[in-house]
């Protein structure tokens, strides 16, 4: 069996990211062999295909190359809903502060965020991940695998670091390099 071609076949039918472990189980080969073959397959696709092998949401998946985006979009007519600034704001807070309660999000933003949270839940970008052990046991929110997929991230650690920024007028003594947030 040509491992690289077999992997290509599996990745072709996969409709979500697959891990090397999953691929190794399906092909009954060691994981390291799959990883080596994936590397070769990725290199080959990079040079010889309209597709690319991407590492996303904790696994591998085949995707179209960006240079063919216009043609693919015309062909598939995808319905992409753009995200408003307020949705992105709530999403960013959840992504960097998770797990976080709705009240904590409201507290950071200074406005009610329940509508935005509902919208993000509907878009499967955030989800309930548990309850906080405080009075009232409020719901905790976190991002989903779909969030990683939607932003072409492999893991939360790939989120750009968040630096505490100050207004430019503050000038010297800025603490812009302090306070990098820790991700779960």
């Amino acid at each position, binding site marked *: 069996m040509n491992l690289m071609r077999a992997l290509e076949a599996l990745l*072709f*039918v*996969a*409709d*979500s990211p697959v891990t090397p472990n999953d691929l190794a189980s399906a092909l009954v080969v060691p994981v390291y062999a799959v990883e080596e073959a994936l590397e070769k397959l990725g290199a080959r696709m990079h040079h010889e295909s309209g597709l*690319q092998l*991407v590492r996303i949401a904790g696994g591998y*998946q*085949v*995707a*179209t*190359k*960006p240079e063919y*985006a216009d043609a*693919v*979009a015309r062909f*598939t007519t*995808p*319905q*992409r809903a753009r*995200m408003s*600034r307020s949705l*992105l*704001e709530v*999403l*960013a*807070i959840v*992504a*960097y502060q998770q797990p976080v309660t709705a009240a*904590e999000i409201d*507290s*950071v*933003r*200074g406005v009610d965020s329940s509508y935005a949270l509902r919208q993000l839940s509907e878009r*499967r970008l955030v989800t309930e991940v548990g309850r906080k052990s405080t009075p009232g046991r409020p719901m905790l929110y976190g991002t989903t695998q779909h969030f990683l*997929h*939607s*932003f*072409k*991230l492999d893991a939360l650690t790939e*989120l*750009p670091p*968040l*630096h*505490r*920024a*100050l*207004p*430019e*007028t*503050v000038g010297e*003594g800025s*603490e812009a390099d302090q*306070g990098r*947030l820790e991700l779960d």
Partner: protein
Amino acid sequence: MAEGKEVVRGDGVSALGVVAPVEILIECGAFSGSLGALFHLVREHKVDLLGVPLAPVCEAYLRYLLESADVDMDRAGAALAALAYLLERKAWNLLPSQEGEEPEVEDLLETTEPWVHEFAPAIEALSQLAEERSLVFFRSTDASPYELPYEPDGVSADDLAKALNRLLEKAAPDPPAAQRRPSRSLSDQMVEVMGRLGVDFLGFEELIGAPFTRSDVVWWFLALLELIRLGQARVRLEDGEVAFARAVAA
């Protein structure tokens, strides 16, 4: 300003939240800079607020509200929050302290770190990532979470589901069991819906007619779905809302 100079401008730097507050420039002996910068430095205990006259700043803010032709409420709100915070801090500082000790001031704003404006770069980064992601297509991952065996022209299952949810939120609770109307069948409901459907498109709420209960909404929705599936009703989007009409005979 009696003890300093202030200028109110429509464009400002961001100091409070993603929405920048109205820019009020303050110049006095103890501080020179914007309201946003003053707010931040006071929170960091780097400026002695006692040396900064706040009354002229408040007057400048009120003048902006009264005289500006197009007041940006978001930015005005951000400035109001900053001013309220500064006034409270200064009021506490002006209170006499016993034995020369600083009064304990509960800084509610310090309980929320990081402040929302610190997420601005992250929001930009997420926008950029989403833009890059939109250039790449995967197999089936963009499928709608809702599935229907029939795809009405121009209306997605999400549109229908949203219309249902909106009306369910408006619907009155169902009456107690003792007063509940006799159970009905979907066929009966479809007959009722067909009687109401006309040639002109009507929105869901307009079609069902008030008052309605949550059960009514669900029955109407199921009947409409079935009629669409059977080709006896049409659906389309009008100003982002789904609207229904009787199918026109070929």
